[in-house]
């Protein structure tokens, strides 16, 4: 039996099933079926036997991991600092985190070409201070891609983390202080554990997004830093191997959903 309210949901549900669910199911089908022979795992066998695919997978994992760690290292202090700010300063800080979140990812990636290029700001600064003689190449290698990704994804970690930190009651910390706990103990024994679920959830979210990143590696990697998404692009648009692309997509989808399930559990804990 359908209860109340279903008729409001139905139009969108039909559109979603036809234009989103069905294509994904069709893609899964391509990954597991071979014309005339039915179910097959041969597209996956092809993946394992091709070293390039494994190398790209390793690349993606490594870059995703480094970018995620960088996000944690920058995001946690930032969110913590924002929590301690006064009203007006805090509002400005929030605006400066939210605005990049909404600005086109292309714009944010593109600007790094100017900042990180051989004649760019960072290199001129490094040479001016005498730290290096020759320009350091940040672009078109893993370094540039990692910096760009960390930059694009930072708001995804900072915003939920800040939301969790702001909920922590100051009186809890004052109580600990009044009973003689030094700041270090208060931070590690009370404050940090309370922010841990949000930190873990945000980190997983950033990691998921890293795995499927496409635009930033394509631009800042200059074709030299292939990640899964760029490989998929090649398999669809350049050397059409749809079955192979479907097989890789299926793996990426399953991994993403598994991590997302973990994220949901942590997120519920964080907002409880």
């Amino acid at each position, binding site marked *: 039996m359908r209860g109340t309210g279903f008729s409001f949901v139905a139009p969108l549900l039909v559109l979603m099933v036809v234009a989103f669910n069905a294509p994904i199911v069709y893609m899964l089908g391509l990954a597991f079926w071979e014309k005339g022979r039915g179910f097959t795992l041969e597209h996956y066998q092809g993946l394992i036997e091709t070293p390039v695919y494994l190398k790209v997978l390793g690349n993606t994992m490594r870059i995703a991991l480094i970018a995620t760690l960088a996000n944690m290292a*920058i995001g946690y202090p930032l969110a913590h600092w924002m929590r301690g700010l006064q009203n007006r300063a805090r509002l400005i800080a929030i605006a*400066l985190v939210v605005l990049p979140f909404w600005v086109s990812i*292309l714009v944010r990636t593109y600007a790094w070409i100017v900042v990180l290029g051989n004649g760019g700001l960072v290199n001129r600064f490094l040479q001016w201070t005498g730290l290096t003689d020759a320009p350091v190449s940040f672009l078109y290698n893993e370094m540039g891609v990692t910096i760009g990704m960390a930059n694009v994804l930072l708001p995804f970690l900072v915003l939920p983390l800040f939301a969790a930190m702001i909920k922590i009651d100051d009186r809890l910390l004052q109580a600990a202080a009044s009973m003689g706990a030094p700041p270090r103990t208060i931070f590690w024994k009370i404050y940090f554990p309370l922010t841990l679920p949000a930190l873990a959830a945000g980190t997983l979210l950033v990691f998921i997004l890293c795995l499927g990143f496409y635009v930033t590696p394509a631009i800042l990697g200059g074709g030299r830093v292939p990640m899964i998404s760029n490989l998929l*692009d090649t398999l669809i648009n350049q050397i059409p191997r749809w079955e192979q692309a479907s097989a890789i997509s299926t793996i990426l989808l399953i991994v993403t959903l598994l991590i997302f399930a973990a994220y949901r559990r942590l997120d519920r804990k964080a907002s409880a």
Partner: protein
Amino acid sequence: MIGGSPWTRRLLATVGVLALVFLTVPIVIVIPMSFSSAKSLTFPPPGFSLRWYETLFGNPRWMEAMWTSTVVAVISSIVALVLGALAAYGLRRGSFKGRDWAEGNFMAPLIVPTIIAAIALYLGLAKIGLLGSFVGLVVAHTILNVPLVMMVMGVAIREFDQRIEQVAWSLGASWSYTVRKVMLPNLAPSVFAAWVFAFIGSFDEVIVTSFIAGKYETVPKKMFNELILEVNPTITAVATLLIVLTVLALAAVVMILGRAGKLKPTLV
């Protein structure tokens, strides 16, 4: 308060400020670059000129891309808004079998990596012969922006006291009268916010569009293709326009939600 010694506080403030600089540097740097007189990308620009804007507005292909982007964004954001708001209402007020499942399904485009959505849509549209069609493009953009509408409208409808609706009904108001005179005036700020988010989402969409748009060029698609080929300063002008558009849209959302006192629940 925690924070410890003045030294740790100073260190924290330094890290915080540097993090904000890191976050905003790409946006801050692009704007002055777009007014540069130089042919190459150097910062700071050697002189002021509007040449890149002239190049941009004088290029019929960029103008066409802007037109396509606008049309796609207008149609898809309105469809996403109408269907998404109705669904959010049904989900919040109704109770039917599979409600959680439906809600999860509507949010899925946010979780499924966009590249996978792009490939699935590419394969699916190719199968039914709609690859590179305008309809396919608009439908894809609609689906991708449904989660944004659901998030904003879901909160708004949950916060809107159901008893106000019930009072209108019990006083004999018709369904359409209740919607027009009671619900919409109350929900208007959130509806506006949801529409703006969906519009920006569509206007900035690049991955799915690059895969399925065929001969249609949108602003981000053209920008992406040019960025891969060469570094062209005209892009700084496009980027600046996109930044200005985003800032204005967000400012409008903040103002309208703030005036209605709905800023906090929508953002957190």
